[in-house]
């Protein structure tokens, strides 16, 4: 298929899936089966697009002179589309297993918005300019709201308000201003290799403009705009997987990275030093979130803060303003995606099989759920950055980038953070395998196969990514 057709396919398949979900609402197996099938096709399409050379572009419509809705897959966007496209069918399969296993209600509505959210994510990934990105960014917020509040009780609605409130307000107040500001100064919003702002803006304003993006993209969960992420933990676990690994936060850091690389330009940021402050804000976010994570005993809450911390890596990778660090940040989108989705899948599996959510209740569970816990351990090691798992490479490249620009202190931050990861993720594994069970457990008691299969596959993905890393390193020049 040509690149144009692949763009249509990637954008269209999730919409088709959502339409078919509504159509087959009374035939659960057909409804769920087609979603997984279309997901697998879209994963294939994303992979094919990833291998094609860049240069294709597709304009849907022109709003006003020079303002278009258009899609231009560039290396970074293609990588993100690949991450989202690959994780979507796995997440859908897992969702089906979870929803049936945990006896949640309203499967049709849930699957419908799940697919719409993937459509929005694809739109973000492939967007050719900031305006297109913004439109799909907002669409993603609104399509995930019904998922976050799925349970419909008081707590869910309250969390939903925080979720919608922070994401909408930050994007309207800061991000939109940034978008309009860029358009007024540069006369264009297109993502161009090397950036579009060099020579168009007084370097004095660069840090302020960058701040509009860094804090306007609330989905990147940079502290102090991270509150929505732990709040959204009330949602069913598949939503957490979607939020943390496939779509929402990944869309956030992807946007940060894309703006840094294709709007500001790495060289421009380095020359003006406009992103220095962000290195330290990201460092703070990395460490502070890790420390908060250690205090949480609810498994999902701990993983949520771990995500906030890990997102800091990607924002920092952009702010370090070297090609190596940016490549590391891009790789971390994939590596963290594979790792974190596994962790959440495991958390959901533990909930479905044993109805446990608190880490202190999980002593000895590893022995009854060997597959789940092995997957969890692998993913945890990847997040910590231990070879031979994917997270090792991205962390390594970030450190290299920090050295390139002489941020020695950042090396320390990254090391301390790895240590903290070891403590708060390691605890869960150690309790699982070595602590004595608080309650009596008998034999092997795993979650259903529809859940085990995706979580083992994503765990293996972390492993595979380490060895096939060459394929996923994007060269940002220099």
């Amino acid at each position: 298929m040509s690149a144009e057709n692949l763009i249509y396919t990637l954008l269209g398949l999730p919409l088709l899936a959502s339409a078919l979900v509504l159509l087959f609402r009374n035939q659960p197996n057909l409804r769920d089966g087609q979603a997984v099938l279309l997901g697998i096709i879209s994963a294939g399409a994303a992979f094919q697009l990833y291998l094609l050379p860049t240069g294709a572009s597709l304009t849907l419509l022109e709003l006003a002179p020079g303002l278009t809705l258009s899609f231009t897959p560039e290396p970074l966007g293609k990588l993100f589309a690949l991450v989202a496209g690959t994780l979507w069918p796995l997440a859908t399969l897992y969702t089906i297993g979870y929803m049936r296993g945990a006896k949640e209600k309203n499967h049709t509505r849930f699957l419908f918005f799940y697919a719409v959210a993937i459509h929005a994510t694809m739109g973000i990934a492939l967007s050719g300019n900031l305006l297109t990105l913004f439109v799909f960014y907002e669409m993603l917020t609104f399509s995930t709201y019904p998922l976050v509040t799925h349970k419909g009780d008081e707590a869910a609605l309250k969390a939903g308000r925080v979720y919608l409130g922070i994401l909408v307000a930050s994007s309207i107040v800061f991000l939109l201003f940034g978008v309009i500001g860029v358009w007024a100064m540069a006369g264009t919003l297109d993502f161009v290799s090397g950036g579009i702002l060099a020579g168009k803006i007084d370097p004095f304003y660069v840090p302020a403009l960058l701040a509009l993006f860094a804090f306007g993209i609330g989905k990147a969960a940079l502290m102090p705009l991270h509150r929505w992420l732990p709040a959204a933990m009330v949602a069913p676990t598949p939503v957490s997987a979607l939020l943390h690994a496939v779509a929402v936060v990944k869309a956030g850091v992807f946007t940060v990275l894309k703006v840094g690389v294709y709007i500001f330009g790495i060289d421009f940021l380095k020359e003006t030093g406009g992103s220095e402050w962000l290195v330290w804000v990201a460092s703070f976010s990395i460490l502070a979130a890790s420390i908060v994570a250690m205090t949480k005993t609810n498994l999902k809450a701990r993983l949520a803060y771990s995500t906030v911390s890990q997102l800091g890596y990607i924002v920092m990778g952009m702010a370090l303003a070297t090609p190596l660090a940016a490549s590391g940040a891009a790789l971390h989108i994939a590596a963290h995606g594979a790792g974190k989705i596994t962790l959440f899948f495991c958390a959901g599996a533990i909930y479905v099989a044993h109805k446990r959510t608190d880490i202190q209740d999980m002593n000895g569970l590893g022995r009854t759920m060997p597959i789940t816990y092995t997957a969890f351990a692998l993913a945890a090691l990847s997040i910590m950055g231990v070879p031979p798992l994917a997270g090792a490479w991205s962390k390594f490249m970030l450190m290299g980038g920090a050295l390139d620009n002489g941020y020695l202190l950042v090396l320390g931050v990254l090391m301390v953070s790895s240590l903290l990861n070891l403590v708060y993720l390691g605890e869960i594994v150690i309790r699982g395998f070595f602590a004595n069970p608080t309650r009596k457990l008998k034999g092997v008691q795993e979650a259903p196969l529809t859940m085990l299969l995706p979580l083992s596959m994503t765990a293996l993905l972390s492993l595979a990514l380490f060895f096939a890393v060459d394929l996923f390193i994007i060269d940002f020049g220099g």
Partner: protein
Amino acid sequence: MMQHLPILQVLLPLLASPFAALLRGRDVAWGLTFVTTGLAFLISIALFFQQRAIGETMIYELGNWAAPLGIVYVIDAASALVLPVISGIGFIATLAARQLVAAEIDARDHGLFYAAWLLTIAGMMGQVTTGDAFNIFVFLEISSLSAYALVAMGAGRDRRALPAAFNYLILGTVGATFYVIGLGLLYMLTGTLNLADLAERLPHVEETRAAFTAMAFIALGLFLKMALFPLHFWLVPAYAHAPSAVTALMASTATKVSVYVLIRLIFGVFGVEFPGIADAVGLLVLTLGIAGAFVGTLAAIVETDLKKLFAQSSIAQLGYMAIGIGAMSATGLAAAFLHLFNHALMKGALFLAIGMIAAQAGRATMGTIQGAGKQIPITMTAILFGGLALIGVPLTAGFISKLYLIRALLEQNFWLLAGLTFISSALALAYVWKIIEATWLQPRPKGAPVLRETASQYIPAWIMVVATLGFGIYATPLVEAAFAAAHVFIPSVAGAN
């Protein structure tokens, strides 16, 4: 026939008005109004395309008396753009008025209501078309006097409409008087009232104090009429207590016409080169505009009555138009025209939707709409989209105006002002969010009246919503038309778009 279109669109509603007053019986007067405004709308659209096709100013001489002796009607890129806004809103508001008026106005008064309704539309169309400064005053009075009467007709349900109308009358008359005093000075200086003629002769006397005074009087009078902060106090009570249909019509048109007349006189007659105009109008209007944007927005945030809330928001939105004017550049004027057009659409949608709620529930407050998303989803979705457009979310018309407004300010290196403009418009999120949250995220209180919606109730609002979205998704022709309108007053510099 075709060459008489410029006068027909004014004449039709003017002549239909006395008939409407005489007609008795349910829906007869409405039917006449509906047909008349529909025709006026068609004519103004035809004029728009005719003007675009020939690409130059069309002059219609009344009774074949040439200017400056006779009165001329001028269809140029600017008036051709504003006319369809007024007649279009007039038409859609008439469509909605059938239900709203039946619910809110005593059946005996329907004929008089529609007579005043037609007169105010005719007056506004006349102000936009005429090429004579005194003729503008005549039409201004026609539209204003009938508007006072329309507001006062809200008294049947809400006695507060009477003081509101009285206030409006006093301040409106003060404004009109200021305008006519300025005009007198100009006539004394130049001996002409034809706008084009005035523009030609003024440079010879521009150093005189009388010319400056004339400008000050005219500008001040129009500031009052367009409700520029801090001369806006008449607007909120007038909009809030008027019959719902009147609010929808006036909020989208009345102040806009004064904005247009201000542009026409300040830029078309005095011109950007006029001594002192950059300070007296430019800087002043910018300052008042941004102040109004904040005051209106903040007042809207704390307001609980929805008509008042959106009336306050109108103060803010007029502030944005003022900022576009105050930028004293082609882009700024284009932004003002864009926002004039776009804001008419979104406020039309909002007030029509709210009017339907108010007509049913007696009032439309935050309490009335709490949890209403489940009962009247289609109406509330219209309000949602209108609100998003007010904030300036992409894919709505509001985004396009905001975009060009900020660009106009940054072109002149008004960084601080651009930031303030953006912040105030982002603050609109607060009051829109308040409504979204109450409507969609909160449960309907027990014992609250059941709201209903039928197609005939929400279709008028939805026509405006579709237009708001349409001009947000495909704005290119509108942007071109707005720049063409701006270039009538400030000749184009190469490369602007």
